[in-house]
C-alpha cells in the first residue's frame, strides 16, 4: 500500500483511494477481484463453515440426546438466540418473528462478519466499506418489508403508508410527499449509507492514526517523535471502538429491518 507514508519525508493523509486497491486476479474481466473482494469471499467461506459446524453439532446432539453444548456450540447458540429472542421475537412476536428469522439472521451475521475484518490484522479493511454489500442488504430489507406489507394488507399497505389516517384531507398535499420520501426512498438509502459511512469513517480514522504513528516515529525529528506515542495510543483506542461499532452496526441494521417489517405489518389504528 504505497498510499500511506511513502518514504519522501512528507506525511500523506489517507484518502478515498484507500477503498480502490489494486486488482489482483482476473484483471480486465467483469470478475476482477481486488483485496476487498477477496476478504469478502474469505468471510463468506468462514461464515459457511461456522454455520455448517454449528448446525451439524446441533443435529448430532438432538440425535444422540447429549443436549449439553460445548464452548464453541454455546457461542453459536447464544449468537443465534440473540437475533431470535431479543430482535425478532421482541419486535415482531413469535409467529412473524420466526417467519422473517432467516433473513434477519443472514443480515446480522453477514454484516457482523464483513464489519469485523476491519480490525482483523492483515485484512484491515471491512468488507462493507465499499457500497456493494450494504446496497444488496438494504435492497433485501426494502423488498422484504414491502412484501410483508403487501402480503398482509394488499394494496391498502400503500394507502396506509402514504395517506396516514387522522390527518385533515388538505394536509395530504404536504404529508404524502414526505411520507413517500421517508418510507420508500430514504429508508433503504439510509440503511445502506449508515453502514457504509460508519465503516469508511472507521477505516480512515484507523489509517490516519497508524500512518501518523509511522510518520512520527520514523520520519519526524526531535520532540515530534513523542507525538507518535500519542497517536499509537489513539490507534489502539479506536481499534477497540471499531469492534464496538462493528457489532453495533450489525445490531442496528438488523433492528431497523425488523422495525420496518413490523411497521409494514402493523394494523392501522
Amino acid at each position: 500500500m504505497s498510499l500511506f507514508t511513502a518514504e519522501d519525508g512528507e506525511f500523506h493523509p489517507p484518502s478515498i483511494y484507500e477503498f480502490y486497491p489494486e486488482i489482483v486476479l482476473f484483471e480486465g474481466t467483469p470478475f476482477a477481484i481486488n483485496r476487498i473482494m477477496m476478504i469478502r469471499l474469505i468471510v463468506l467461506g468462514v461464515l459457511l463453515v461456522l454455520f455448517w459446524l454449528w448446525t451439524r453439532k446441533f443435529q448430532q446432539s438432538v440425535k444422540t440426546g447429549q443436549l449439553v453444548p460445548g464452548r464453541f456450540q454455546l457461542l453459536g447458540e447464544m449468537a443465534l438466540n440473540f437475533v431470535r429472542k431479543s430482535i425478532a421475537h421482541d419486535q415482531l412476536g413469535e409467529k412473524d418473528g420466526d417467519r422473517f428469522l432467516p433473513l434477519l439472521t443472514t443480515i446480522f451475521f453477514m454484516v457482523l462478519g464483513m464489519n469485523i475484518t476491519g480490525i482483523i490484522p492483515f485484512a484491515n479493511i471491512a468488507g462493507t466499506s465499499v457500497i456493494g454489500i450494504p446496497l444488496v442488504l438494504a435492497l433485501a430489507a426494502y423488498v422484504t418489508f414491502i412484501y410483508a406489507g403487501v402480503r398482509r394488507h394488499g394494496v391498502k399497505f400503500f394507502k396506509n403508508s402514504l395517506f396516514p389516517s387522522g390527518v385533515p384531507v388538505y394536509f395530504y398535499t404536504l404529508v404524502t410527499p414526505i411520507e413517500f420520501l421517508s418510507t420508500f426512498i430514504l429508508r433503504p438509502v439510509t440503511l445502506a449509507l449508515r453502514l457504509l459511512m460508519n465503516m469508511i469513517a472507521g477505516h480512515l480514522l484507523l489509517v490516519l492514526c497508524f500512518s501518523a504513528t509511522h510518520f512520527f516515529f520514523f520520519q519526524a525529528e526531535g520532540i515530534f517523535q513523542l507525538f507518535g506515542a500519542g497517536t499509537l495510543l489513539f490507534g489502539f483506542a479506536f481499534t477497540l471502538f471499531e469492534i464496538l461499532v462493528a457489532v453495533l452496526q450489525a445490531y442496528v441494521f438488523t433492528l431497523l429491518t425488523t422495525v420496518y417489517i413490523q411497521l409494514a405489518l402493523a394494523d392501522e389504528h
Partner: protein
Amino acid sequence: MDAVNIAELSGNIAVVGYGLAAIGPGIGVGLVVSKTIESIARQPELAGRLQVTMWLGIAFTEALALIGLATPFIFG
C-alpha cells in the same frame, strides 16, 4: 517581494460543511441518550426496552451526519 498573507487558508470548503452538518446530529444523539438515562433512572425495570428504543433513535439521528459525510462524493 510579495506580500505574505498570514491568514491564508487552503483546503476544501466541504470540510467546513461537514463540521456544520455534524452539529445537529451531535446535539440530537446527546438528547436521545440523556432522555434515555433519565427514563432508566426513573424506571430501571424498563431498561431493556428503553435501550432498544435508544439505539433506534440514535440510528435515525446519526443518519443525518452520515448523509453529510456522503454528500461530497455525490456533489463534490
